[in-house]
């Protein structure tokens, strides 16, 4: 049985490997295999899996990659993830990727889809639009057709039809994966000293590059291994981290928040793993099932429209209650429109609910953690010393 350290070491290697060796190896094992990349925040990986392809999450270049070419494509006031993603493409690190999906998250990622078309005309590129109308007969109908168009596009890459039965099987595989993801998150919320957030982060990050079955096994192994760990309970405060759903923070940022005295008991990293809140049914029309689940049972985040003004930010308050969180840290990438435009509304909802919060910004290559550590530490101290519950 693998130890926690061994599992996390492997996950860290996967996260830092900017050549995507594991995905390349997966593809090289069989000449018929294809890899389809996707950016945050959500794509239906079930369809890619059903096509026999590897869905590969592209989350930028992180803090270990020097961006040289990518900066020539973007002005200084645009976030870093598109420029490091371009860098990955220009430096041929994604030359094995057969298709790229750019989800509907913001104008920068949207426009990147067009840049990709110009840059790599031979690669299948799709801007994956999702409805902002959440009625089954309007947004649901539109989305189901978008899924069918995506399916046709994937079939075009492989030259093989994707059967309904294959999609149902993939839905079941991802249902299982989501259960395990939720189990890890629940464990961390229950016993955050056992499952530190930087480990959970790396574990989820591994799911961006591994075949889903391998990722599920990894989580199963972690859940078993971590129970055997003897890790001390610290007098940390419990916080939720919000705003990091696209460009990823450096691992050191997560570690710094924890070192500053905060247990992160929920977050919005790799939101794709928990986007759907319920199991997708495995009988009936699989496309309709995926659409229905998206419309009626998907998570709330800044990239989505909230039709009911009274509900704006309520998910965060419920999350704080469910996770027994004492505060919220808004950690958004610089120039991130969705996170930064949403923040005042979420902050207002927290204020009305009496939940303390702090805000700061980062970039995927932020190097200076001391200010963040100080801010998070002060926040933790304030909660511990001055909150009504203390």
């Amino acid at each position, binding site marked *: 049985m693998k130890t926690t350290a061994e599992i996390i070491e492997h996950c860290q290697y996967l996260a830092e490997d900017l050549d995507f060796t594991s995905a390349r190896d997966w593809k090289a094992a069989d000449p018929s295999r294809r890899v389809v990349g996707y950016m945050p925040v959500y794509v239906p990986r079930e369809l890619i899996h059903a096509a026999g392809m590897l869905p590969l999450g592209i989350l930028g270049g992180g803090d270990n990659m020097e961006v040289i070419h990518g900066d*020539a*494509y*973007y*002005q200084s*006031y*645009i976030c870093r993830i*598109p420029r490091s993603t371009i860098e990955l493409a220009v430096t041929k690190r994604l030359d094995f990727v057969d298709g790229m999906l*750019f989800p*509907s*998250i*913001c*104008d*920068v990622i*949207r*426009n*990147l*889809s*067009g*840049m990709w*078309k*110009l*840059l790599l005309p031979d690669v299948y590129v*799709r*801007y*994956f*639009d999702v*409805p*902002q*109308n959440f*009625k089954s*007969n*309007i*947004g649901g*109908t*539109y989305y189901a*057709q*978008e899924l069918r*168009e995506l399916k046709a596009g994937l079939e075009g890459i492989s030259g093989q039809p994707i059967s309904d039965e294959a999609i149902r099987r993939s839905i079941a595989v991802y249902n299982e994966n989501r259960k395990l993801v939720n189990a890890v998150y629940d464990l961390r919320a229950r016993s955050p000293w056992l499952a530190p957030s930087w480990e959970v982060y790396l574990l989820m990050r591994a799911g961006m590059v591994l075949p889903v079955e391998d990722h599920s096994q990894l989580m199963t192994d972690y859940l078993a291994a971590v129970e055997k760990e003897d890790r001390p309970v610290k007098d940390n405060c419990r916080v939720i981290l919000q705003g990091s759903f696209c460009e990823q923070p450096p691992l050191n940022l997560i570690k710094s928040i924890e070192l500053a005295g905060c247990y992160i008991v929920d977050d919005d990293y790799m939101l794709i793993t928990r986007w759907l809140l319920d199991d997708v049914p495995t009988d009936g029309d699989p496309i309709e099932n995926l659409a229905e689940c998206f419309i009626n049972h998907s998570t709330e985040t*800044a990239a989505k*429209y*909230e*039709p009911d*003004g009274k509900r*704006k930010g309520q998910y965060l308050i419920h999350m704080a209650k469910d996770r027994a969180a004492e505060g919220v840290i808004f950690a958004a990438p*610089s*120039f*991130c*429109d*969705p996170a*930064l*435009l*949403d*923040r*005042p*509304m979420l*902050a*207002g909802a927290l204020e009305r609910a009496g939940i303390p919060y702090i805000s700061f*910004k980062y970039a995927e290559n932020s190097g200076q953690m001391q200010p963040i550590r100080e801010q998070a530490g002060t926040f933790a101290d304030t909660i511990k010393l001055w909150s009504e519950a203390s």
Partner: protein
Amino acid sequence: MNTAPEREDVIKESSMIKQKEMITRNYDLLTSTAETGKKVAATYVPGNLNELIMCFDMLNNLPEINAIQNGMRKKSGALIQDAEKMGHSEDVCTYVKADIGHMAKGSIAPNGKPMPPPDLLLLSYTGCFTFMKWFELLRDQYGCRTTMLHVPYEGDGVITANMRDYVVKQLKEEVIPALEEVSGVKFDIDRLRQNLKNSAKAEDDFVWVLESAKNKPSPIDAYFGGVYYVGPIFTAFRGTTDAIDYYRILRGEIEQRIKEGKGPITPEGEMTQEKYRLVVEGPPNWTSFRDFWKMFYDEGAVVVSSTYTKVGGVYDYDGFRHDPDRPLESLADYCLGCYTNRNLPMRVDMIEKAMEDYQADGFLINSIKSCNSFSAGQLMIMREIEQRTGKPAAFIETDLVDPRYFSPANIKNRLESYFQMIDQKRQGGSPMKAA
């Protein structure tokens, strides 16, 4: 857009006087709803449904136009800083912050009277992600009824049947019922058809105006002058007989200028020498609009085509017209076809065609800090256009309504170098690199 503050030294033509009357009347209508009982829908320029809104006897109030008004009147800087003090990030769109600051100061219209809170927030989510969050922020402030029209992005450069059906369904099942409920007026499709017929008439003349810049010299400036020309058709007047009259008058004036071989009218009079013909991508800066324009006309530079004049609807490139025979489908196609709702390869194709059709000497991007919808990818657009046309391109950076991001000396230097580059290119100089 059609919002410049008046100055005595500005030369006025009949079309300008006509537009000023229309705007004044519209603000008077907007600020007198307490007396008239008229209902107000707040909505955006791209994807605005003016023909439909008018079917319900409602008025249309556009937050971007209010931000532009405040930008041109030098008020937006303080409003933006107020919004930042309220917790809005320095990184996000300054239209949003100017609007929120404006609300906090009582939403005073240019006529000095307070604008009423909207009865309906009609969110047309077309070509700009920020719009969606902006309306959530406005709803948070006003607490009024909101209805959303989500317009899918033309990611593959085409309008699919699924996209059109989705928009039409939202119009039928979400937008029209909300307008009926708020206004108390029942929807009459024949009234919509008539409004659309009016739109199409005005659009014909509007396209003629834009295409008049193919003449040498160009009788218009299609960017700085263009923002006035798009005013009626982008805002509260599309579908009205006023708009038809405005574009008829404008067309007559331009026909006369072509006959007389005259160049565009600038704030300091007619431009006498056309030295450089440019295509410009991106919105203008509003806080120093006239200073910015002066940097061009002082050098004899005329903008013969601009992408900004397509942000509230594309009528020239692929011949779209509002169509009374397909009323809702036509509104859907209008929304789907707005410039920033088209993918980057399409935008490059459109610019390339304009460079050729308008015999431009160069391509200039005014990149706006606030507007990722326009700005993300512009450096690639520039490279593509340079490669495809062989014409020199340049890149400057400003902002919409935040005066902190307008650096006159830098911009002037950059433009002067750029014009020298064009001269050098004409003389057979070495291949150009972007300025």
